[in-house]
C-alpha cells in the first residue's frame, strides 16, 4: 500500500486530499501512476488531462515522471508551485 496525496487543483479535481492504494504491477514509474489514476474516473482524467503540467514528489522530494515508484511510502501530485 502506498499513500497518495494531492494538492491545489489536483486535489480539487481528484475530489480528495489523500488515499491509500495498492499499485498494480504495471505501474513502475510516476508517469505510469498518473496514467493509471487518470483512467479511474472523470475527475482524475481532468486532473491528469495535461500530464506535463502535474508535478510529483516521492517521500517529500521532487521527482521526474520517469522516476520509479518502487519503495515509495508517500507519493504526491500537485500543480506547478506558486509560493514565494
Amino acid at each position, binding site marked *: 500500500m502506498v499513500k497518495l496525496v494531492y*494538492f491545489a487543483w489536483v486535489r480539487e479535481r481528484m475530489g480528495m486530499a489523500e488515499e491509500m492504494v495498492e499499485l498494480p504491477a504495471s505501474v513502475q514509474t510516476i508517469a505510469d501512476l498518473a496514467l493509471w489514476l487518470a483512467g479511474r474516473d472523470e475527475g482524475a482524467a481532468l486532473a491528469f488531462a495535461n500530464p506535463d503540467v502535474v508535478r510529483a*514528489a516521492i517521500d*517529500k522530494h*521532487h521527482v521526474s515522471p520517469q522516476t520509479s515508484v518502487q519503495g515509495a511510502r508517500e507519493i504526491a501530485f500537485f*500543480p506547478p*508551485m*506558486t*509560493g*514565494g
Partner: protein
Amino acid sequence: MREAGRTTRHISVQAAPFDLAAEVEKLTGGRTDIGAVVTFTGLCRDEAGLLSALELEHYPGMAEDEVTRVVDEAEQRWPLQAVGVIHRFGVIRPGEVIVLVVTASAHRVAAFEAASFLMDYLKTRAPFWKKEHPADGSSGGWVEAKALDDLAAERWSAAKRD
C-alpha cells in the same frame, strides 16, 4: 549559533504573521562580523481592489524540507553568516506578508545574490499554491505559475556552469 564559520539559520513555515525587525535581530543581533544584510519581503497585493485575500495551501513536511534544501544550496554557493526564511500559509489579506528572506554576509554582493537566488528557487521549488479570493465574492481560481519564474530560477544553473 554564533561561532565563526557557522551560519545562523532560521527556517519556518507558519500561519502566523511575524515581525521583520524581530526576525532580523534574531539572525544578526549582537554580531560585529556582518557587513551586509538583505531582506526580501513578499506581500499580498489587492490587484487594484479586485482581490480580497490569497489562500496559500502547502504540503506540510515537504514545505519545510524543501525550504531547508534551498537554504542549504544558498549556503554552499555564497559565504553567508546568517540566513532566514519564513513562509506563511493560510488566508493572507492584501498588505500582509507572505514570505520573508533574510541573508547576511561580510559583503553586499553575496547577500544580494543569495537573497535573489532564494526567492527564485522558493518560487519554483517550495510546495505552496496560491488561490485567489476575489473581492466580488466569486469563487476565484488558482494562481498560474509563471514561465518567467522558471527562467529566473534557471539563470542560477547557467551561472553555475559558467
